[in-house]
């Protein structure tokens, strides 16, 4: 799924970061183009934040290069910083400042005219629905609102490339959905977006995802492509009366197998659908668990991810 050469916004080559003996990032190549929402997926500690911080020049890589909008991030850091928006993993606005003061502060740091600053602040506040909270002290806002404000601050200078590090971590599902709606809206304006997350369901919102595991990108492509190519086996979805017992029974039956809960259904990865179904029904009958339905399901990213992780560990 290569990005067209003329569309490249970010290009990273062979990024490596060592912390002492630990190689946190191990040869990451990335290309992101205009209008893309790129999901950077991986478990905690996989090297997501380290990679992101190298991409925007906050951290000197041990080896490798990063170009954003045609500029070398480490050669012309300020040309790059002027054009990108960054939302760090941890909330990083000033709690003792008001909403407006935070926006006024961040907008004042970028290459904008005073007039456009005023208009732009109105615009982003409108978008994240914080118009009525202008004079509120940031520290008194709810977690979701703080996150919306952080997004507004990252956007206030109209960046051409937006990087969000775990923007939805620890916020309520409703605000999470709203944040994604904003991202679609911003993405539709043509700017490039990179989002890191460890929520697998969120990756489905992206145009393209890259999966990072132990510092390496182990899979990259559109969500559907990844599901098709990176996944071997078939998923059986099992609906029962007692999903808890069903889950543990199956876990005993397939100690090495990929078993996971999907809502109250149990997902089981088998080589052969027919044979698998027969075996499951037998075991369930023995245990006296009533099976309501068994059907082949399409793998979710979560299924893919668990398999990828397992493959990597082997």
């Amino acid at each position: 799924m290569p990005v067209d050469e003329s569309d490249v916004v970010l290009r990273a080559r062979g990024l490596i970061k060592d912390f002492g003996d630990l190689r946190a990032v191990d040869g990451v190549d990335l290309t992101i183009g205009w209008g893309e929402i790129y999901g950077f997926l991986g478990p905690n500690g996989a090297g997501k934040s380290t990679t992101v911080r190298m991409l925007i020049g906050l951290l000197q890589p041990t080896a490798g290069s990063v170009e954003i909008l045609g500029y070398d991030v480490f050669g012309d850091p300020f040309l790059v910083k002027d054009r990108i928006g960054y939302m760090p993993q941890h909330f990083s606005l000033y709690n003792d400042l008001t909403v407006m003061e935070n926006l006024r502060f961040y907008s004042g740091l970028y290459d904008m005219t005073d007039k456009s600053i005023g208009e732009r602040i109105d615009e982003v506040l409108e978008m994240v629905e914080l118009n009525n909270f202008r004079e509120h002290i940031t520290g008194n806002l709810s977690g979701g609102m703080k996150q919306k404000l952080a997004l507004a601050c990252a956007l206030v200078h109209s960046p051409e490339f937006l990087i969000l590090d775990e923007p939805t971590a620890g916020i309520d599902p409703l605000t999470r959905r709203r944040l994604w709606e904003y991202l679609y809206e911003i993405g539709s304006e043509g700017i490039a977006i990179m989002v890191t997350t460890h929520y697998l369901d969120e990756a489905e919102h992206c145009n393209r995802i890259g999966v990072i595991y132990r510092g390496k990108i182990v899979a990259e492509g559109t969500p559907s492509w990844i599901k098709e190519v990176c996944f071997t086996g078939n998923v059986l979805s099992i609906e029962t009366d007692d999903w808890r017992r069903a889950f543990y029974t199956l876990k005993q039956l397939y100690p090495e197998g990929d078993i996971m809960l999907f809502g109250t259904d149990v997902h089981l990865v088998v080589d052969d659908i027919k044979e698998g179904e027969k075996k499951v029904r037998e075991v369930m009958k023995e245990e006296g668990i009533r099976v309501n339905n068994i059907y082949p399901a399409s793998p979710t990213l979560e299924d893919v991810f668990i398999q990828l992780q397992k493959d990597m560990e082997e």
Partner: protein
Amino acid sequence: MVIRTRRLFRMIWKEMVHLKRDRVSLTMMIALPVVQLTLFGYAINTEVKNLSLVVIDPNPSSDSRYIVESFVNTGYFRFAGYINCYDELRLLLDENKVRAGLVFPPDFKSRFRANKSVSVQLIVDATDPLASRSAIATARALGLHHSLRMKMGESIAGFEMPLDIRVRGWYNPDMRSADFMVPGLIGVIIQLITVLVTALSVVREREFGTMEQLLASPLRRWEIVVGKLTPPLITTYIIITISLLLAYFVFGVAIKGNIILLYFLTFPFLLVALGIGIFISTIAKNQLQAMQMSFFFFLPSIMLSGFIFPIDAMPNVIRQICYAIPLTYFLNIIRGIIVKGVGLYELRLDTLVLLTMGVLVITLSIMRMGKRLG
């Protein structure tokens, strides 16, 4: 050009808003010098007066009373009553009830009248050498005075000493310790506030993760540093002004030299203090550590800068350390201008040292600041 100045302006503006919102710190910054100066200005007094004195006198007479009176009249002793024996004196000294005891022999009156040599014993609690020293000196002087009187009789008025050493204390002829202590205290206080406020404000940004966002913006490192330094710089000048007013109206410490020169020459010292604050913040991981490091720096500053103990009296090795302490030079400047009334020429060396130290430590901090993020 416009954007460049706006970035710096926004950074300073933000710091001012922080300061405005942080009422507790702001109040502390203003209250600290007032409280400290008032307390220390009165309490730190190296002239020890009014030591309580008891007297053991088996045969009280007008002559022994005359001697006791002469002790009390010096102002260094305060008569606390007669007691009967040594044991009683020991108990009183042990319990810190009195600081000195004067012991007359039983035959004092007869020997004194006969102009015969007679010993009077002064026992002093020398736990505090500073306090006992002036008491001892006073007692010796009294002994000499009374001996002369006994030998010369009434002709003492016309007596000329063969060797007459006359002492004149320059700059502070009345030997007022406030004149010495208060300017020093101002130096200590402004160093405390500047270092602490600067260190904490930068560390806070790191602790709350806001530093990350600042460094991801086009803000230059020096703009962050200058933005951080400006508000404490302004507040410190306000504090100095309050302290000088307090020094004048409460302690009667007037500025003999040029006050404008004092404000100017304070700047190199503030540069060093601010730089040390920033430097601490590049090492400390959180506000608590920054506090501890600041105090680790304050203690030698107070002990070895000549704030209380004169540097000349220190052993050679220690003296080398004294000269590495910025406060040493600033105390020369502030005491020089306030007490001695000297000008820029006399203070050129101190100013130069502080300027060099300031530029060095700030440059070092700016360099460390970026690297520290990794």
